[in-house]
């Protein structure tokens, strides 16, 4: 009884701050984009527009749920739930600080990878079940994009795992206490971040919701809570990707230098600061860059990133073997 209560509390302690941060991620995105385009952004509801995401959530909550008559209702309702739950499932293995983790599993990175592989299903099912051309085309685009960029992400992750010698996320962070992996594996970090943009269907790779061609991609037919679940899932995935980038390349909760003025700040605060940088980068890229064409996107993924990451995997493993740097 007591144990299950603790478990429920743990889960709530992850989910509630996650949903809050997703809500304020959307506000931050709108504010940052507005200031890049020299506008004010949302500033009416609450002080400086701080209550805007709550108002948006309330609006989506009380809207009418529309079920298209030609849709496959069961799968139509299943798809947003699947997307949302899968985006929450990944957070179990994320270490927020030293020993601040729900499940410290040995194969945490592989688990995250499997979850992100599963999250393609929510998108592809929503596109198929809503029985509309736009949604179907959007979901096909989105799914093929995610599948193809997952491959290069896999190779990058393997080269990081070779350097750290473990699939456990905490141990990957501990192994970066000498130097963060963004320095020795700098090209991998760049490719990983760009692949993360493509994996989360963000600008400049947001082909699935190219407004001019496909109304809004796979979620055209969804209204109210269905749409809200997709939206939350998408932004939670973005946050998860920035967490993963920080863990793999920026040393997670470790401070910049392990000397006195930097060690005053606790680990989770360092983690949060690094995440903020990536969140701002996500918004900045959205405001600054034009959209890729679809064949360019595919050729970038398969013909540039994949060969380069395989080549770098061979290179880094041979360096590790030559200098006897292998961690075990």
């Amino acid at each position, binding site marked *: 009884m007591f144990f299950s209560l603790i478990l429920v509390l743990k889960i709530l302690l992850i989910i509630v701050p996650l949903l809050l941060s997703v809500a304020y991620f959307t506000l931050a995105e709108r504010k940052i984009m507005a200031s890049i385009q020299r506008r004010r952004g949302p500033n009416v509801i609450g002080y400086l527009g701080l209550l805007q995401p709550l108002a948006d959530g309330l609006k989506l909550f009380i809207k009418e749920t529309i079920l298209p008559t030609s849709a496959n209702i069961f799968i139509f309702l299943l798809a947003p739930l699947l997307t949302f739950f899968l985006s929450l499932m990944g957070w179990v293995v994320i270490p927020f600080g030293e020993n601040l983790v729900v499940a410290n599993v040995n*194969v945490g990175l592989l688990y995250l990878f499997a979850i992100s592989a599963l999250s393609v*299903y929510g998108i592809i099912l929503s596109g198929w079940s809503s029985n509309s051309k736009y949604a179907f085309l959007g979901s096909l685009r989105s799914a093929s994009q995610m599948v193809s960029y997952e491959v290069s992400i896999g190779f990058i992750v393997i080269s990081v795992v070779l350097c750290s010698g473990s699939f456990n996320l905490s141990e990957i962070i501990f192994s970066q206490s000498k130097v963060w992996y963004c320095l020795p594996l700098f090209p991998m970090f760049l490719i990983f971040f760009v692949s993360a943009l493509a994996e989360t269907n963000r600008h400049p790779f947001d082909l699935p919701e190219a407004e001019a061609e496909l109304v809004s991609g796979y979620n055209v037919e969804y209204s109210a809570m269905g749409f809200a679940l997709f939206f939350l899932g998408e932004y939670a995935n973005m946050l998860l990707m920035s967490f993963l980038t920080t863990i793999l390349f920026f040393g997670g909760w470790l401070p910049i230098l392990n000397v006195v003025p930097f060690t005053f700040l606790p680990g989770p605060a360092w983690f949060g600061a690094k995440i903020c940088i990536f969140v701002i980068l996500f918004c900045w890229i959205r405001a600054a860059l034009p959209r890729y064409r679809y064949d360019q996107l595919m050729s970038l993924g398969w013909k540039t990133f994949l060969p380069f990451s395989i080549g770098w995997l061979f290179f880094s493993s041979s360096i590790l073997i030559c200098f006897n740097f292998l961690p075990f």
Partner: protein
Amino acid sequence: MMFFLFSIFLIFCSFGVISSRNPIHSILFLVCVFIFSSVLLFCLEIEFLGLSFILIYVGAIAILFLFVVMMLDLKINDKLFNRLQYDSATYFLIFFLFLELALPISSLNSFTENLYYSNFDWINWLSHIETFTNIQAVGQVLYSYYFIFLLLAGFILFVSIIGSLMLTLTLNKGGDLRS
């Protein structure tokens, strides 16, 4: 206990694969079969293989199936005659396969009873002294005793890569320069 529960789910899902009318539904049941079988691997504490099972089968292969089936213009043939014709044969075969599996298991009943219900109260000291992760165990066996099979698997994959390249390769005679 959990193992048997999930195996029952797995059997139901595999019935769903062959009995559902809509091909998309049968692929979704197939995905469920893969997921439940990796859950079975989790129950046996082989989490590395389970996760890679999800990654490869669910994340790559079943997605490709789903893609292809979605693109095809399939007509759902739901006439009673066809159902009787095909399904009766299927269930007939399944019944015999099941019998084939069930007979040896039922004769082994005493053995499994011993395995599952005996109350050994012992501590595995070895696992306390030296713990192996799954990955280490797999690697130690795979690269030493079974390296020849690893090489063979690599060759087979290589041949399949070459084959798929040859299938898709069209010699470009001044065609589309953009791509």
